[in-house]
């Protein structure tokens, strides 16, 4: 099970089955978009990626620079998209677009991961059952949701492996923080076994800062889940 890094807001799969047009296939996070937002988002992705070109090489990843997406959600999100045409001519012009939504403060981090993400998508196994005849079979949605959650876990693992710019174990950095941030960082430094998430109430306001900076990670599940410094 991947540890939750909190940087990836959602992973979305969009496709262009020839008979139904732009389709929001599934995403990793429930209720992230409303139904209307999903339709709008899928259409926008189609336009941005210029899908429909029969000449897109099969199996090759087409990526893009991060694009701002402020309109569809409260947070300041951006997204990366990677389109892949299946390695099988029986699906004709079908393109799958993997879209990764993240907070705009992490643009540089995600940009640095593009080659790794492309490698992952290249080898990521996903069944295309449900796309026969240029259609999309809605009953397959739970499967694609599960695949997007799997994909998001892979991305979280990639991010977890990246060293943070600052560390909880750098006392000079920790003492440069102020107020609750410093208090929390010191508490983490002195807790090598981590701190139970249930005991973090007083630090809720500063926790997003440490998650964004990737200086913390979560371990375990439920009541036993702890947060640890890195």
């Amino acid at each position, binding site marked *: 099970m991947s540890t939750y890094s909190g940087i990836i807001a959602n992973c979305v799969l969009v496709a262009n089955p020839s008979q139904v047009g732009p389709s929001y296939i599934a995403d990793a996070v429930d209720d992230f978009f409303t139904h209307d937002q999903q339709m709008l988002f899928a259409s926008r992705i189609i336009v941005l990626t210029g899908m429909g070109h029969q000449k897109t090489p099969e199996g090759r990843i087409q990526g893009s620079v991060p694009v701002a997406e402020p309109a569809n959600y409260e947070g300041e999100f951006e997204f990366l998209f990677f389109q892949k045409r299946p390695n099988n001519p029986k699906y004709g012009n079908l393109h799958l677009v993997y879209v990764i939504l993240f907070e705009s403060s992490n643009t540089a981090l995600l940009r640095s991961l593009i080659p790794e993400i492309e490698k992952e998508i290249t080898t990521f196994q996903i069944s295309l059952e449900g796309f026969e005849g240029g259609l999309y079979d809605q009953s397959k949605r739970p499967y694609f949701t599960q695949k997007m959650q799997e994909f998001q876990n892979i991305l979280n693992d990639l991010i977890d492996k990246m*060293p943070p710019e600052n560390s909880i*174990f*750098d*006392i000079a950095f920790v003492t440069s923080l102020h107020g609750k941030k410093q208090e929390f960082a010191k*508490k983490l430094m*002195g807790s*090598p076994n981590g701190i139970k998430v249930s005991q973090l109430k007083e630090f809720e306001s500063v926790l997003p800062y440490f998650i964004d900076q990737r200086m913390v990670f979560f371990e375990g599940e439920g009541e036993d889940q702890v947060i640890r410094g890195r």
Partner: protein
Amino acid sequence: MGHTITVYSTRGGSGKTITSMSIARTLATRGYKTILVDVDIEAPSLIHLVPPHINPKDMKFWTQYIDDSSFHISDVIYASRVENLSLVYSNTPEMGKHFLQTRQRVWWESALKRELIAQQDLYNLGYDFIILDNQSGTSMNSVNNMILADTSVLVVRPANYGVDATESFIEEMYRVLKGIKPRNDFYIWNQVIKTENDDEEKILREFLNRYDPRIKKSGLTLGCEIPFDRVLNLFLLSATDQISFDLPADVQKPINQLIDKILEKSGQI
């Protein structure tokens, strides 16, 4: 759960290692499973004061443990002649100085993580007390070793130049360390001269009374006064295993006082 005591000073030659050895030995003889770790990688001296029973070329050292994640702390533990007391040595100063001079911030972050792992592993191995003979002064290494401490013991020699430096040093040190974990901080006067008449005693007491409040204002508690002991100092000129010999009574007594205070404050009595 175990307890970690870091012994440190603002400058070398204050008697840090002898104090560390005395604390470790006394805890061990009281029945606590204790380990003394020479974390003074700049000027390691345990290897000289307690010569190991095997050739140093065949040994593994603390410096290797923190640098190489393939080591487990148990790889660098050596038995002493004192029951319940184990030792971890640091290598020759060259290796430590190499680390101190060449390693970057990221390496020291990793070293702190390695030390925190060692601390947990030593507790899991059943050690009640870990005594860290720290490097003097401020460095990434000495601060890392202070971070681990549940109790710190600052060793101060009563001399103007030493105490003035100590005073300015500890205020900053404790500001930085405050809040990392609950910690009890003690200071001890070490090698206190034995006065021979009332006038000399008055000079000594005036000195100590002048500095005591200035050190205590940083939150430290006086642990004990250890007198300068001629026999102990002569003994240090020899090259035998110095941890297995009884301390002179006038040194053992204040060490016992210090340990009683540590045990009381840590709730281990």
